């Protein structure tokens, strides 16, 4: 009887080798590759379309490419500033759809921008982005247009002076 019982226990374990093999393969696959950050689709879109110059986390050479981290949300404090972001030439001319572009703008403003956006600011939607990107800022002197917005944000809307950094001599000579 004792013998039968052991066989029964063994029979219960019949799937164990398979489970062990499967688990081993999963483990091996995990150990072989280095830990790599898994990106959300919107992060991928940001990186592929903006992150090369603006930096993975929104910080680059701030004199050459505006820093986004903890700053970009200040633009949402005025209607012109809110329109400015989707009207920027490389935003407006992006190959992304209105929907995806709106998602990237929201990621940039509300995640990379940290607490810089005003409390309760409405996220961009595809319709709004679609409207603004048809009026790109390609017929103005962009650096002057930006500076006007920035000076207003600094003097009237508590934006930090750091917003001004872009446009200074990039190499600090």
């Amino acid at each position, binding site marked *: 009887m004792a013998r*039968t*019982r052991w*066989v*029964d*226990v*063994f*029979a*219960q374990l*019949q*799937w164990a*080798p*398979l489970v062990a*093999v*499967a688990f081993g*393969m*999963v483990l091996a*696959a995990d150990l*072989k*590759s*280095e830990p*790599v*950050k*898994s*990106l*959300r*689709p*919107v*992060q*991928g879109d940001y*990186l*592929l*379309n903006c*992150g*090369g*110059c603006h*930096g*993975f986390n929104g910080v*680059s*050479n701030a004199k*050459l*490419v505006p820093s986004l981290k903890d700053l970009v949300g200040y633009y949402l404090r005025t209607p012109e500033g809110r329109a400015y972001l989707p009207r920027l030439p*490389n935003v407006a001319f992006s190959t992304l759809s209105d929907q995806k572009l709106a998602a990237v703008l929201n990621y940039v403003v509300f995640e990379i921008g940290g607490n810089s956006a005003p409390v309760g600011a409405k996220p961009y939607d595809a319709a709004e982005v679609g409207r603004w990107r048809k009026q790109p800022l390609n017929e103005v002197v962009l650096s002057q247009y930006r500076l006007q917005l920035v000076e207003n944000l600094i003097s009237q809307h508590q934006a930090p002076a750091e917003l001004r950094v872009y446009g200074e001599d*990039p*190499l600090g000579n």
Partner: protein
Amino acid sequence: MRKSSFDELSERLTRRLAGYSSRRGFIARLGMALAAAPLFPLLPVARASAAEPPKTDFERNAQVKDETKCSYWKYCGSDGVLCSCCGGGSHTCPPGAEPSPISWIGTCVNPEDKRSYVIAYRDCCGKPVCTAGKSCWCDGTDRDLPTYRSSLNNDIIWCFGNASATYHCSTAALVGLAG
């Protein structure tokens, strides 16, 4: 002595099991399971082989072993001389050269797991161009766009954000798994 109910329960269970299973049955089922297992694409390895077929010549020839060859998988959009041939690594600059803060970013497929990874193509700057052999000069053009889409162009020397815009060599840094 009175049997405990736990003993009775386990006896009933084992007897029932004994009635429905046999040693040969186990071997037969194990054999079947081993034969049938490959049919279930549950494991990551199986899922990987079911992924999309390679789209570009580069992807067909990509390898994961040698970082000093143009066919190394991360170099699918790399244009220039490999830093790994110049005393640096696939994503590190050789001593004395500094990485550009700006880069262009694309994706490459890793031939092992067939998944797309986001890659930053960063130039190393501030030293004269590295003099490595011909085999270290690469021109991967996967997802490279013409110069009028400059943020996705591999011909641009990305050293213009550095103190010295002199190009030394090219790296390809893994940023993450594309979502």
